[in-house]
């Protein structure tokens, strides 16, 4: 048996729940997951190899075929497409010789498209192995590929000053973190975390939970569940152990505010986790970091280490015998669905990121079957600030149903894309003028899973849970953009990211996407729009989790806000043949077959009665 694989298994004590980590180590070892290695890993874990593959094949950063020496992932978001994506992709294909989804002949480069990598403020952008290159142009791409061919490593190119990977300067070397507007809650200077925690521990868990509850803090992940209530339910749930998980799987296309928080205020996030742990009684915490943010890992590890050295993590936190808590980073492997808290938990347990059947809810039976609190990065950062400033202070911010502030990741057609902290209750128009959107037409609020609003109709709507509920993603489009094309792109995204566990989401998103294609092709009629509404509502209401619960939104919300873009494409049926029936295509195969099989072109074709 292979010693290296044995060593990996031993390092994780043959613990099946750490399968994702073990797969990553294998992947780094071979550049892909060879069958033989998977078999050995499976044997060492008393699993069938198909069981291991069940997990590995779920994640798109795991490959079961050899990849090139360098693996390139170009982010294919709609924002990238507005900024020269096609030219960059063409340059990549040309310079590497690798087709999209494949490898060049020499085995040097593998090239893939990937959904949003959390850099919509500086796209086009790509990951090359574990580093990232942003603001790509064909020239820049040529230069990077040339250097790689000359033997320079991606890290050497991206980080010419060889800054240590665990410093924030390294992250700053790779990416920009444009925090364009700060407010009262986030990105605050905080030096005395020990004092803050001391106060919380002195006050006791019930008081901490009470502060979060009376502050009115709600989850910033999108659903807006009361943080205090979540903690209380978790605290009260029976369980031998409890867990805090920080959801840093920021996968919603167009969001990057968690990336900014983890870059600029990681310790505020960790402190939020420690406060949660103290409140619910957890000894272990996990940060589920999306694979796309791999370049933050060393930096975050070092920040965690600093906390340990300060006695804020580890055994006997602040000298208290009863309070032990530590945090590990769990790397994801590419799956949007892992942003769903129960899918994320499955992934942390080394399984496919399949959303669980609820009930039981994670606060009752979460990670390893124990009560688990999953909070978003931004929520946890807010927790720390609330703890510092008090519930009353926080209550004074925002509106009645939405207390506090929220971070917006703004991208698209505006002068200043970046991070903006706004108080809940701010109007869309105010935000648009803040970011320098000269001629905004449509705004995608909360990413593909949210709603697309017409600025003309919805500009005075206010951000808040009761109105413009926003998970942080804000993409702005002006009139030059093809909204139908964007809708189609979003539907394709959901088709690609559906885990496939439930029927409506697995099957329905494909049918909805095909409907959009039909309309774009000028073959749709009113009945298609009616069916979109009906099928969309079916998928929305019968799907197992929030992905299917929101995947029809790109179509349904544009249909509602921009009916004219659909109407303009509709056709009336002429004669008995349905407009959707493509007669030319139906007869094309025959001609194609003849050419291929007999090498003769058809000449005098009899006309089919149209």
């Amino acid at each position: 048996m292979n010693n290296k694989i044995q060593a990996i298994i031993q390092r994780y004590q043959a613990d099946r729940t750490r399968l994702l980590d073990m797969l990553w180590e294998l992947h780094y070892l071979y550049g892909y997951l060879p069958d033989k290695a998977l078999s050995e890993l499976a044997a060492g874990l008393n699993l069938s190899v198909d069981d291991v593959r069940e997990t590995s094949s779920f994640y798109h950063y795991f490959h079961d075929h050899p990849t090139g020496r360098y693996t390139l992932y170009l982010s294919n978001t709609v924002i990238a497409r507005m900024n020269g994506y096609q030219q960059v992709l063409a340059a990549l294909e040309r310079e590497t010789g690798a087709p999209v989804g494949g490898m060049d002949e020499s085995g040097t480069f593998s090239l893939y498209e990937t959904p949003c990598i959390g850099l919509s403020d500086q796209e086009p952008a790509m990951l090359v192995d574990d580093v990232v290159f942003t603001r790509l142009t064909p020239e820049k791409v040529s230069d990077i590929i040339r250097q790689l061919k000359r033997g320079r490593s991606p890290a050497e190119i991206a980080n010419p000053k060889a800054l240590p990977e665990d410093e924030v300067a390294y992250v700053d070397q790779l990416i920009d973190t444009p925090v364009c507007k700060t407010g009262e809650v986030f990105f605050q200077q905080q030096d005395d975390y020990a004092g803050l925690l001391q106060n919380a521990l002195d006050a006791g868990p019930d008081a901490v939970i009470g502060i979060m509850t009376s502050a009115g803090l709600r989850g910033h992940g999108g659903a807006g569940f009361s943080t205090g209530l979540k903690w209380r339910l978790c605290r009260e749930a029976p369980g031998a152990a409890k867990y805090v998980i920080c959801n840093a799987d920021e996968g919603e296309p167009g969001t990057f505010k968690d990336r900014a928080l983890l870059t600029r205020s990681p310790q505020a996030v960790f402190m939020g986790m420690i406060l949660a742990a103290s409140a619910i009684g957890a000894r272990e915490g996990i940060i589920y970091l999306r694979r796309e943010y791999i370049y933050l890992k060393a930096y975050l590890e070092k920040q965690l280490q600093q906390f340990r050295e300060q006695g804020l993590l580890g055994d006997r936190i602040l000298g208290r015998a009863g309070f032990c808590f530590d945090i590990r980073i769990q790397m994801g492997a590419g799956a949007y669905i892992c942003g769903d808290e129960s899918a994320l938990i499955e992934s942390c347990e080394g399984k496919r990121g399949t959303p669980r059947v609820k009930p039981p809810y994670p606060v009752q039976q979460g990670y390893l079957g124990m009560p688990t609190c999953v909070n978003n990065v931004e929520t946890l950062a807010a927790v720390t600030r609330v703890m510092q400033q008090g519930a009353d202070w926080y209550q004074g911010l925002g509106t009645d149903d939405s207390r506090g502030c929220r971070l917006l990741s703004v991208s698209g057609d505006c002068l200043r894309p970046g991070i903006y902290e706004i108080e809940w209750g701010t109007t869309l128009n105010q935000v648009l003028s803040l970011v320098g959107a000269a001629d905004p037409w449509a705004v995608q609020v909360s990413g593909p899973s949210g709603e697309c609003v017409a600025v003309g109709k919805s500009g005075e709507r206010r951000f808040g849970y009761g109105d413009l509920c926003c998970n942080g993603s804000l993409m702005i489009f002006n009139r030059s953009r093809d909204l139908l094309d964007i809708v189609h792109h979003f539907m394709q995204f959901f088709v690609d990211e559906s885990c496939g566990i439930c029927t409506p989401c697995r099957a329905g998103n494909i049918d909805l996407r095909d409907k959009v294609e039909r309309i774009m092709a000028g073959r749709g009629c009113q009945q298609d729009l009616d069916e979109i509404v009906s099928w969309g509502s079916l998928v929305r209401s019968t799907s197992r989790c929030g992905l299917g619960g929101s995947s029809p939104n790109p179509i349904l919300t544009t249909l509602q806000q921009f009916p004219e873009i659909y109407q303009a494409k509709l056709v009336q049926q002429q004669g008995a043949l349905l407009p959707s029936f493509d007669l030319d295509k139906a007869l094309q195969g025959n001609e194609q077959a003849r050419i291929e099989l007999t090498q003769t072109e058809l000449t005098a074709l009899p006309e089919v009665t149209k």
Partner: protein
Amino acid sequence: MSKPDNNNTYSHDLPARQLDPELQAARDEKIKVAMIGLCGCWGCTLSLLDMDEALLGLLDKVTILRSSLTDIKRIRERCAIGFVEGGVANEENIETLKEFRENCDILISVGACAVWGGVPAMRNEAELTDCLKEAYVASVTAVPDAIPTIPYHEDIPRITTKVYPCHEVVRMDYFIPGCPPDGATILKVLDDLINGREFDLPASINRYD
């Protein structure tokens, strides 16, 4: 199929014998029904005839303008109810179905092939090129070393890229699944429709095989 410059003559173009005026008048009163077959095995059409003597009871009310007994290619007059057997697998099927749609008030897909493609649609899993290759170029009975040919003549309809359910080509009003559906099932549908009742196929008689 009915091009004026074509030298062929089709059955529906032939002059028909005038009926006795009284008989003609009685027939004109009746509900006109027709059934055509596209790409199928004619099993469903046989099922229509499988109504046996029950058919006689209907004949007071309906007249069957076209069936496998009168194999005309086109119906001569508008029908109230059209039954379609078979899926759409070639251009002649398209043309026939289109013409039938234009001339029937209610159009019903009968049997698995019409409803979703059925057995002919098993070729949808393969490329048409491979199907034709298997049939004509690389078949076991192909003449060795012959120049590869695929039968082609204007009288031979071109096979479509895929086999389509009828409702993907024209609008269909109702569907009777089954391979084939029972004569009794078709009879029930027909009986319901000519007596002004809603189309209804309860679970007890709905069959997919």
